[in-house]
């Protein structure tokens, strides 16, 4: 094939492709997907795969919450995440030994529940004189004038993190306050911590601090069914440092997080991981594996089929037997088995496995196509001129099948993407990568479907579907151009 012919052919092909609306739509989608995949580190969190598996990194996020925009579609509105840094807080020093840090939090009207928790982080302390160690107290001042004592006079050590809504002692304090207001009884905080009702509701007692609490109400009803008390709340953190010269309290990096009941663009999973970031990063693996597997297996299948057809006779027979052997081994179970025994699976290993079990169909079809081509006169002529087998196969027969190969490559991408997702879904995947299959695997093991966490299940599958659709659109357009029978329509 001369260069001029190639250029001519390409131009003709492009002209025809431009007329296929579905093909154009596919190409547009593909460009978008590639852009999303390439810009993932800049649009979301850089180095996500390293952070994905460290639960400590996601501690400041609420767990299992839907995306924020979901509020538009539901009557029970869910508060979003609110974060305060040093500049957002009012910090006062009433005396030499005291520091008071205040955060004003607005619980907006019409919202269903207050925050899922409050996390205060990065209070760094250097203690040189342990006898006079600094202490802290934490209060929540409510719009109805009541104050919930969350922590009182606890020593500060090293780097302190206060986790309201996760800390059992704090939850017990909330319960003590609740019983005090409703029934007028004074409970012992240590006793309260053992109370089954506190142990059962450690993570939900925080809701009562943001609920209507009046004398005469029943504490248990409030815990089970808190009625929201909307308005401005004030979180007050008092740090008492009796020896400010020896013991230093540094609050320059302080971060106060009111955990939302909804989060970000795609919500969070059971570890509080930002699913949006995971989905965006997952597109990288999906695209890479899909394209790599389909290109490799198509090329291998093509060369294999053509070689088999061209050589003919016993060699053909032998090669087709090998093809049948590979085709008749049930691939998914064997893939699972190999993946499970190898232990640490890398992405390249998955590509290799999928290629090994993916080239057979193409080999069969290209063999039958090559059987016809090899009978043509110009092949005979080349043979008569003394061209070698390799030359005839690669120079004369394969180029004829190349246009067909492009359609096959495009059409087999969805299968490869689904295959990778299936393996990851079964827990056989590269543990250092973030993939859609792994997100769905976590969703399945945490029974997200039976708990109704749709934001965890829907997006990864939609991602797979979009990648699939992109390549199917391109593939069918190519197929229509290259398969004249269907073109008549």
């Amino acid at each position, binding site marked *: 094939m001369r260069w001029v012919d190639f250029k001519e052919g390409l131009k003709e092909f492009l002209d025809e492709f431009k007329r296929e609306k579905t093909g154009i739509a596919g190409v547009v989608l593909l460009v978008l997907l590639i852009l999303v995949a390439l810009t993932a580190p800049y649009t979301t969190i850089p180095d996500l795969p390293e952070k994905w598996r460290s639960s400590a990194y996601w501690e400041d996020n609420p767990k299992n919450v839907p995306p924020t925009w979901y509020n538009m579609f539901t009557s029970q509105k869910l508060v979003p995440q609110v974060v305060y840094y040093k500049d957002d807080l009012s910090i006062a020093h009433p005396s030499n030994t005291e520091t008071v840090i205040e955060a004003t939090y607005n619980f907006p009207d019409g919202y269903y529940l207050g925050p899922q928790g409050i996390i205060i982080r990065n209070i760094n302390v250097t203690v040189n004189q342990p006898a006079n160690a600094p202490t802290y107290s934490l209060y929540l001042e409510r719009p109805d004038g009541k104050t919930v004592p969350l922590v009182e006079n606890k020593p500060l050590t090293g780097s302190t993190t206060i986790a309201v809504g996760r800390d059992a002692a704090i939850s017990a304090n909330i319960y003590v306050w609740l019983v005090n207001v409703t029934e007028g009884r004074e409970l012992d905080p240590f006793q309260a911590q053992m109370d089954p009702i506190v142990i059962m509701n450690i993570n939900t007692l925080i809701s009562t601090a943001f609920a209507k609490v009046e004398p005469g109400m029943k504490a248990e009803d409030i815990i089970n069914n808190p009625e929201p008390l909307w308005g401005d709340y004030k979180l007050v953190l008092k740090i008492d440092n009796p020896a400010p010269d020896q013991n230093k309290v540094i609050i320059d990096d302080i971060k106060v997080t009111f955990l939302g009941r909804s989060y970000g663009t795609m919500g969070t999973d059971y570890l509080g991981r930002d699913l949006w970031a995971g989905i965006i990063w997952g597109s990288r693996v999906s695209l890479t594996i899909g394209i790599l597997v389909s290109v490799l297996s198509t090329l291998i299948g093509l060369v294999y089929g053509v070689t088999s057809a061209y050589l003919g006779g016993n060699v053909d027979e032998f090669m087709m037997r090998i093809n049948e052997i590979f085709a*008749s*081994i049930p691939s998914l*179970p064997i893939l699972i088995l190999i993946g499970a025994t190898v232990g640490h699976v890398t992405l390249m290993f998955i590509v290799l496995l999928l290629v090994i079990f993916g080239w057979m169909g193409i080999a069969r079809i290209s063999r039958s196509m090559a059987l016809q081509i090899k009978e043509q006169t110009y092949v005979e002529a080349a043979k008569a001129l003394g061209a070698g087998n390799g030359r005839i196969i690669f120079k004369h027969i394969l180029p004829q099948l190349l246009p067909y190969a492009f359609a096959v490559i495009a059409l087999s991408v969805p299968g490869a993407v689904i295959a990778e997702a299936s393996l990851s879904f*079964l827990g056989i995947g590269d543990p250092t990568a973030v993939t859609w299959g792994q997100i769905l695997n976590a969703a*399945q093991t945490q029974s997200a479907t039976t708990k109704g966490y749709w934001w965890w299940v829907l997006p990864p599958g939609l991602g797979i579907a979009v990648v699939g*659709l992109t390549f199917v659109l391109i593939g069918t357009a190519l197929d229509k151009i290259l398969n004249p029978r269907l073109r008549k329509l």
Partner: protein
Amino acid sequence: MGYLKYLLFRIANAILVLLIVTFIIAALFVKVAEQSNLAKMNDEMMQWDRTTGQNILRTQGQDAYEKAKAEYEEFLREKYELNLPYWQKVYNKAIRTLKLDFGTTTTPIFGTNDVAEIIKVAVPRSVLLFTTATIIVIILGIFLGVRAARHAGSVFDRGLSVFALITYSLPMWWTGMMFLLIFAYKLGWFPLSSMFDPQLTGWAHVKDVIYKLTLPVLTYVFVAFGGWAWTTRNIMIGTLQEDFIMAARAKGIPEHKIIYGHALRAAAPPIVTMIIFALLGSLGGAIISELVFNYPGMGRLYWVALQQNETNLLIGLTYFFTVLYLAGVVLADMIYGFLDPRVKVGASSKM
């Protein structure tokens, strides 16, 4: 080459492939079993050492202990077949598998340890679910595909194509998860788990089974029928452009008869092949879909076997799948040769 000879050749061919594949499977699984058996043996050895071994050491002295220990180790090696060389084990396993002697599992599944019995319990369940669904898909797919081909380019045809392209890119198990979310969690029409209630019998049992099957069947049909319709449409459009259809039309044969009598018959061989593989494939179940629906069929059984490291069961299941596939190949060849006489003289004479 006559039809019978052609068929015999294909069967011999399939048997040869089955032999080779069985050896490959045995080689793979024996390797896996070797590791777990070694671990099991070491466990039992330690157990013995702590109890019986220490006892002998105390009462009969060092020499007797060493001797008893060596004896016990020998016994265990034999029990776990660790005394044989690797290829000997592979050969034994493959031969036993070919004789359908799959052995037993270490823990009972479905109330029995016999691998063959376990498979016998699971197969009908997968058949019930996937074969039912496959039949619905085939009927729906062919009917809609033919309709689309007749009105090629119409709104119906385009709509069907778009639907087919979208569902082609969907993993079935994900669609299952979504259906569970919508129909089982949100609307509450179907159960969240498709595990049967073992206490029910008679009519109540039938009702329970139907209730639990509906959602998985719906999922399968939803994902698969578009692709079937689309393939049928493409094959039919190709056939409808053949000369003999033109001729039939020119003769004034009613359109209905042309479509179903002439065109569909000519398009039958590839469609029949698809039907055979779809039906046989349905016996195997779908591993992930059964996991998602928590349905107790072949696919879930495979998963359980993997989790519990039941090598014998794994070999049995894999062998079953392989036999099914090869049977499908032979069957498809048979019907192909029957429907399309050219195959017997054309392709097979060149083989």
